[in-house]
């Protein structure tokens, strides 16, 4: 495919980053399909360009959305297959093996579900999940996901910016950070009994990070509602940070004055910092972060690909960290 060595520094619009030959070929393919020359598989692939939403796998309830127009919200990289996205997961509440969540998360009850939003806000509220779903217009966003373990995916998420929710509850001047609390239910989550982490799993963002248009309150992927193993019914996706900064199955969002103690930070503060921005220059003590393996691509014997700063979202989020020593605030 068309692989860029620009470390993600330049990707404005689709036509900027898609080589002419490739999009011309796509257009001729679409024309051929219009003429009835192509099969079902090809038309599903082409629908991504033609209709603005990726083809649904047909596994779960559809979650309609419109392709996002936000800067950096839609990468044109090849999507990771739905089967890989939904069978290779870190969701320790359902077990520590990557295959455990897909096998065990069937027990998760996603209705009824409420999200408590409180703390340093003028209008604290408890949102029913169905009210949250209608709070703002659903957007489809195709983000890179970079795991701290050195692998990555490209996933079409469905959701809206967290800022939409934040604006409704009106944070006070004391609100400096946002803390996310996730479900920890021993009855339905077999991993919650383990001592790997402190439960419930807690994550956090600085308020300006949480307000960033790319920070996505997420309800679906591949045009359908989230599968349980991917953090149903509502999760965060923060594409410029390592995957563990995107908490799943959220039950509370709190606005606080002090930096929240997050779960991985509590477990090993020298290894998992509060910021945990994707940064190829700052290695994890146990492994390098300079390269990554794209799941489902990069054949077994191909070298891993270089990881871009902020996972390729530097043009959009770089200014959030202007003047910060990112080696210290890793």
């Amino acid at each position, binding site marked *: 495919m068309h692989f860029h060595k620009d470390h993600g520094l330049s990707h404005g619009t689709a036509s900027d980053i898609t080589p002419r030959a490739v999009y011309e070929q796509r257009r001729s393919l679409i024309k051929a399909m219009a003429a009835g020359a192509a099969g079902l598989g090809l038309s599903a692939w082409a629908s991504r360009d033609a209709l603005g939403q990726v083809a649904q796998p047909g596994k779960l309830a559809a979650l309609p959305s419109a392709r996002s127009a936000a800067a950096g919200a839609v990468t044109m990289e090849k999507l990771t297959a739905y*089967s*890989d996205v939904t*069978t*290779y997961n870190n969701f320790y509440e359902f077990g*520590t093996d*990557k*295959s455990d969540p897909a096998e065990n998360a069937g027990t998760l009850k996603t209705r009824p579900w409420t999200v408590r939003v409180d703390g340093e806000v003028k209008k604290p509220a408890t949102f029913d999940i169905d009210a949250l779903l209608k709070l703002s217009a659903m957007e489809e966003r195709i983000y890179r996901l970079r795991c701290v373990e050195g*692998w990555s995916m490209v996933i079409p998420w469905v959701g809206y910016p967290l800022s939409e929710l934040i604006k409704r509850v009106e944070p006070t001047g004391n609100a400096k950070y946002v803390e996310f609390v996730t479900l920890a239910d021993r009855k339905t989550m077999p991993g919650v009994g*383990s*001592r*790997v*982490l402190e439960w419930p799993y807690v994550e956090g963002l600085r308020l300006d990070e949480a307000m960033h248009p790319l920070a996505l309150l997420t309800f679906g992927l591949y045009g359908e509602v989230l599968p349980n193993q991917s953090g149903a019914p509502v999760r965060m996706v923060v594409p410029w940070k390592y995957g563990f900064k995107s908490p799943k199955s959220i039950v509370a969002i709190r606005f606080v004055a002090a930096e929240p103690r997050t779960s991985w930070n509590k*477990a*090993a503060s020298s*290894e998992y910092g509060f910021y945990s921005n994707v940064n190829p220059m700052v*290695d*994890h*003590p*146990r*492994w*390098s972060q300079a390269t990554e*393996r794209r*799941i*489902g691509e990069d054949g*077994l*014997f*191909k*070298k*891993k690909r270089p990881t871009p700063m902020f996972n390729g979202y530097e043009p959009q989020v770089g200014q959030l960290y202007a003047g910060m020593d990112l080696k210290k605030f890793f």
Partner: protein
Amino acid sequence: MLRHPGAKPLLFVLCLLPAAWLFYGAWADTLGANPAEALIRATGDWTLRLLCVTLAITPLRQAFNATSLARFRRMLGLFTFFYGVLHFLSYGWLDQGFDVDTIARDIAKRPFILVGTATLLVMLPLAATSFNRAIKALGAARWQRLHRAVYAAALLALLHFFWMRAAKNNFAEWSVYAVVIGALLGWRLWRWVASRRARAHNEQPLQHSQ
């Protein structure tokens, strides 16, 4: 049964099965979303498992007075090394793209990689002196002393696995190996202490008769 002429070839095939299954999985793409990681982990797992089996031979032989078990020890030890080499090659190739520079820096930088590499280096002279002529050339006593390095390899392998899992605080699987290797090495320690006591007792009968 242990003395059956077919026992050794059968064990040989059994020991090859995990490798055959992994090669098939890599070829048929049945190793999941991240086949490189699956290969690196599985070859490491099998190195540890075969190391445990190899270390179990002597205790089992003595406990059940089954001298014929010793026939299998060399093959099991060599298969341990074989899976260790596969493990290192999977890491060097699939994770590091055989970039010698990167590998050298990685080994120096990451303690668990350093310890894993050290484990393989400790096993190397044991594999290299596993044939009969080497035993003769070294002399049985010296050969045996050299091959006690397998205890160090076992402890290093455990440390390697511990540090790898420490990144995620996930020690459930590690504990199983720790208990098995602890028991196998503990049994030897206990025998060694007992035999020293017995020798001391025999050499200084007067002191004890007071």
